[in-house]
């Protein structure tokens, strides 16, 4: 069993009490945790899925431009954060479970523990409309 590092555990504690969707990933983009508001976006429950490999959740979550065209993963803020270990911000559209398009803003930042240990990243989602 993988055990989580304290920085990830405390990030989850924080996410757990927020009413905006939060995703927490490891350095490879595997989904370690998503909170209740994020369950709405994904249409999945963390209690049921637990950890999700990047290949699995990136297929479920389909960010698009305003014309409904799928965006390449590398253009997404969270992916930018993972590649460059820097904060990132961006906007895109996703379909909710009813098939309706929603404009979303995303702010992502790297989790860098002491002493400069890159551990993963957090993505906060804001509904723009």
């Amino acid at each position, binding site marked *: 069993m993988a055990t989580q590092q304290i920085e990830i555990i405390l990030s989850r504690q924080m996410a757990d009490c927020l009413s905006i969707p939060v995703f927490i990933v490891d350095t490879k983009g595997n989904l370690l945790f998503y909170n209740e508001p994020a369950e709405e976006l994904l249409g999945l429950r963390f209690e049921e899925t637990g950890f999700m490999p990047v290949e699995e959740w990136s297929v479920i979550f389909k960010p698009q431009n305003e014309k409904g065209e799928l965006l390449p993963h590398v253009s997404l803020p969270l992916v930018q954060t993972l590649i460059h270990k820097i904060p990132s911000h961006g906007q895109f559209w996703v379909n909710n479970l009813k098939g309706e398009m929603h404009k979303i803003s995303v702010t992502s930042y790297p989790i860098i523990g002491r*002493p400069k*240990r890159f551990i993963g990243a957090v993505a906060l989602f804001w509904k723009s409309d």
Partner: protein
Amino acid sequence: MNIKIWGCRGSIPSPGPEKSIYGSNTSCIQVTDGNNCIILDGGSGIQRLSESLPKNITHIDLLLTHLHLDHIIGLGFFQPFYNPKMTINIWGPAAAYVSLKQRLRRYFSPPLFPIRLSELPCKGEIFEIHNSTFRIGDFKITSEYICHPGPTVGYRLQLGKAVFTYIPDHEPALGSSDFPHNQEWTSGFKLARGADILMQDAQYKNEDYKNRIGWGHSSMENAIDFGELSGVKKLLLFHHDPMHTDEQLMELYKKNTQNRKLSIEVELAEEGKSYNI
């Protein structure tokens, strides 16, 4: 390995006749095996420890969990520091910017202490560790950041099959999702898993903890929960509150153990006591 408790009081040395059983010196543990001498934390207990060392000892490893005063207050009175023939390696947690050496200098310098770190005649090196694995003699040692304010690690010392885990200041209920039911998501679990002996923070009465969440310490109940979650053989309740007398500690222990079916051995840590594992 032999494990001896030289101090298990939390926060501040608090001597008095009402604490003659569990002791009043702050955190200090000595672990020995053959020629290896490992000291965990430099609380006030280290002063008596230094008087007990064999005359021919030339090498000591000092492992600090963190630099809160109760864990370093005895360092200036640790006699081997003043012996030029002695080698003392100091291991402690890395911070984000300030080096361990610089942080130790804050204690070893006026006005807090008359002698500077650089003036200590002993030899030795300072090692910064984080989520690390390293060796001292035949000991395999794992350190990991745990839930406590400021850079703080716990230690897991393994010698052959014997495992001793030391997490004197630790708030696992805060550093956990769904405490105490989720091993993967609980601070310190990796260090404590299956240990023969776990020393774990148990400073507060359960009712007091409610008003002290985030202070970095654990209630006695949560300490027992953490010991059980980690499947240790023996849990030693550690970092006793300086306000708690022997009598109160015994009462607290009774209250927390008598009405629950324990899957592990639980004892109050007691200054002067030693264990062989």
